[in-house]
């Protein structure tokens, strides 16, 4: 019989079979493969089979059935291979995604990777996506084009460069994170509000831990709380992000530009992705918290060290305090005895008794020693400033009352010019009292009898000003003495400005104390 097809020939020439394409030349000499791969689809072969069956050969009748079965099997295998290939790509992509997510602990970077993966063509290829977190809402994010032009621009750029997921995510994180957040600010704000609404679709999906494809059918049956209008798309999917049974956030994704239909297959692929992303978000959040705790711990540790040092310092100072207290006790009692009895005898002596002069000297010397002792003790006391809110005018009144007798003995007038309604000063009351007392006593030493001392308080931009001025003073007088040195020292320790100015006839001491608590 003269056959139309080449199936009977072991070897054929190029052009004998119209189905053999360039690169398939080996089929010219491989008959079995040529029959299975080419002849089964050749019309001339079918004609040959029809003619063969008319010869009533038994095998000729079953060959078409076998051929049909073989073709079906081939199609099935081909479909399975396609599916496997697609799954393989998906697994490779998820593997790459997991690897990329493992390299970062920064939450924004994790979110950038996730959002890039969901929208990248080599990823899940969605046009647009929004990610909302249940906590840390400042990290919420949107990604995608606003229109076709913007979409083409982006896709064109990506196709030219063939970026990997890492590169795309890194580029997004470095250059687009802020602008995309700003671009979708309005939608994100509205979505955020929906996420907190009880019974809202977003909340329901989050609670059920199952992804949802929202399309026309679902919308008409259960509704979607206006999300379709908000997103301006026909269909979209909602992907809950759940880690250890705890809702971490939710992703909404759609094909805003291409309007490509979202399939169940897309949903299933994204489910695995959702677990990976949720875990990475949770890990980054925990790492953030851990960082915060570590920083706090370091801070507390530093404080503890400082406090330990302070305790050691205080212990040393306490020892100094104990010593000075002991000295005070040992000196003050005999001094009090000498001065006290001298005063008593002076008071009881008659006016022309020559011993009065000696007793007066004793009283004065005892008083001087008393003042020096107070200065020394205050100096050691200044190691422990006990600052609090105090009325500065009250302090001035107290010192005035305390020194009234000494001033009146010298016929020195004390004039008070105190501002009313002053805020409280943040000071160590005893130390500032000591300073003012010392300043006035110092003035007493330089002023002639009958002079005037003025105490002045005012509020200034630096705090509260306490000024003591007096005159006339002898020319060439300089403010010296142990007491003033102690004053300067203890005020300096508390960073309180202390200035002494001398004019032709007048001397002025200025202390500016703080109002606010200062560490």
């Amino acid at each position, binding site marked *: 019989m003269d056959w139309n097809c080449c199936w009977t020939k072991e070897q054929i020439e190029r052009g004998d079979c119209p189905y053999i394409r360039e690169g398939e030349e080996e089929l010219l000499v491989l008959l079995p493969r040529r029959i299975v791969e080419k002849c089964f689809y050749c019309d001339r072969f079918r004609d040959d089979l029809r003619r063969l069956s008319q010869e009533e050969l038994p095998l000729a009748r079953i060959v078409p059935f076998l051929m049909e079965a073989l073709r079906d099997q081939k199609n099935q295998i081909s479909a399975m291979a396609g599916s496997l290939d697609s799954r393989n790509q998906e697994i490779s992509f998820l593997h790459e995604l997991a690897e990329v997510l493992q390299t970062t602990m920064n939450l924004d970077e994790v979110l950038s990777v996730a959002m890039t993966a969901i929208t990248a063509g080599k990823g899940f290829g969605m046009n647009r996506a929004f990610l909302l977190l249940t906590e840390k809402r400042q990290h919420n994010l949107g990604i995608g084009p606003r229109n076709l032009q913007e979409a083409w621009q982006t896709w064109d750029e990506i196709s030219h460069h063939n970026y990997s997921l890492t590169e795309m995510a890194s580029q997004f994180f470095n250059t687009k994170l802020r602008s995309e957040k700003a671009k979708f600010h309005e939608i994100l704000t509205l979505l955020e509000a929906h996420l907190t609404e009880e019974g809202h679709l977003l909340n329901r999906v989050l609670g059920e831990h199952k992804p949802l494809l929202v399309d026309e059918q679902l919308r008409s049956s259960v509704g979607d709380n206006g999300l379709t209008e908000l997103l301006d798309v026909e269909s979209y999917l909602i992907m809950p992000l759940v880690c250890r049974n705890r809702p971490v956030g939710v992703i909404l994704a759609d094909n805003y530009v291409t309007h490509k239909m979202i399939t169940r297959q897309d949903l299933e692929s994204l489910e695995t992705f959702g677990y990976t992303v949720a875990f990475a978000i949770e890990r980054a959040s925990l790492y953030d918290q851990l960082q915060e705790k570590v920083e706090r711990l370091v801070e507390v540790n530093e404080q503890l060290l400082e406090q330990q040092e302070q305790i050691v310092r205080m212990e040393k100072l306490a020892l100094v*305090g104990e010593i*000075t*207290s002991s000295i*005070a*006790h040992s*000196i*003050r*009692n*005999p*001094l*009090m*005895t*000498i*001065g*006290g*009895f*001298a*005063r*008593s005898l002076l008071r009881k002596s008659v006016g022309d008794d020559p011993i009065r002069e000696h007793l007066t000297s004793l*009283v004065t010397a*005892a*008083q001087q*020693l*008393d003042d020096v002792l*107070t200065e020394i*003790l205050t100096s050691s*006391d200044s190691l422990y400033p*006990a600052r609090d809110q105090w009325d500065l005018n009250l302090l001035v009144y107290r010192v005035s009352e*305390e020194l009234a*007798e000494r001033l009146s003995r010298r016929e020195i007038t004390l004039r008070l010019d105190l501002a009313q309604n002053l805020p409280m000063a943040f000071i160590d009351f*005893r130390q500032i009292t000591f300073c003012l007392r010392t300043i006035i006593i110092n003035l007493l030493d330089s002023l002639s009898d009958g002079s005037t001392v003025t105490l002045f308080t005012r509020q200034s931009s630096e705090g509260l000003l306490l000024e003591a001025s007096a005159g006339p003073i002898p020319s060439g007088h300089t403010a010296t003495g142990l007491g003033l040195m102690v004053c300067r020292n203890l005020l300096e320790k508390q960073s309180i400005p202390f200035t002494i100015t001398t004019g032709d006839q007048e001397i002025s001491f200025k202390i500016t104390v703080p109002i606010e608590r200062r560490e």
Partner: protein
Amino acid sequence: MARVLVIDDEANIRLLYAQELGDDGYEVVTAATVSEALSRLDEQLFDLVILDIKLKSESGLDLLQQIVRERHNLPVILCSAFSCYKDDFSAWLADGYVVKSSNIEELKLEVGKVLGKKAHRG
């Protein structure tokens, strides 16, 4: 005439207080130790106690607490060579606080003030 109990471990100080306060018209009784002070307090009624904080190895602040606990109407003025005890909480129980000085006018003023307050309270 108000009766004042002066408690101080220094004999000279006790003598000075007795003389000065006596001159001002007070009846002064003195004690050098805590036990002596407690005996005097049991024997007589006083209008005021002047108490030194450091009584050799004993603490005037402990005695102050005992006096306040057992005789809460009896005012106490604390006397100390050092002003730092003003910051001690237990010193706040006292009705007055005077830093020892060669001029005991401040103490006399405080005595007058505290006794005046007591008289006013009845």
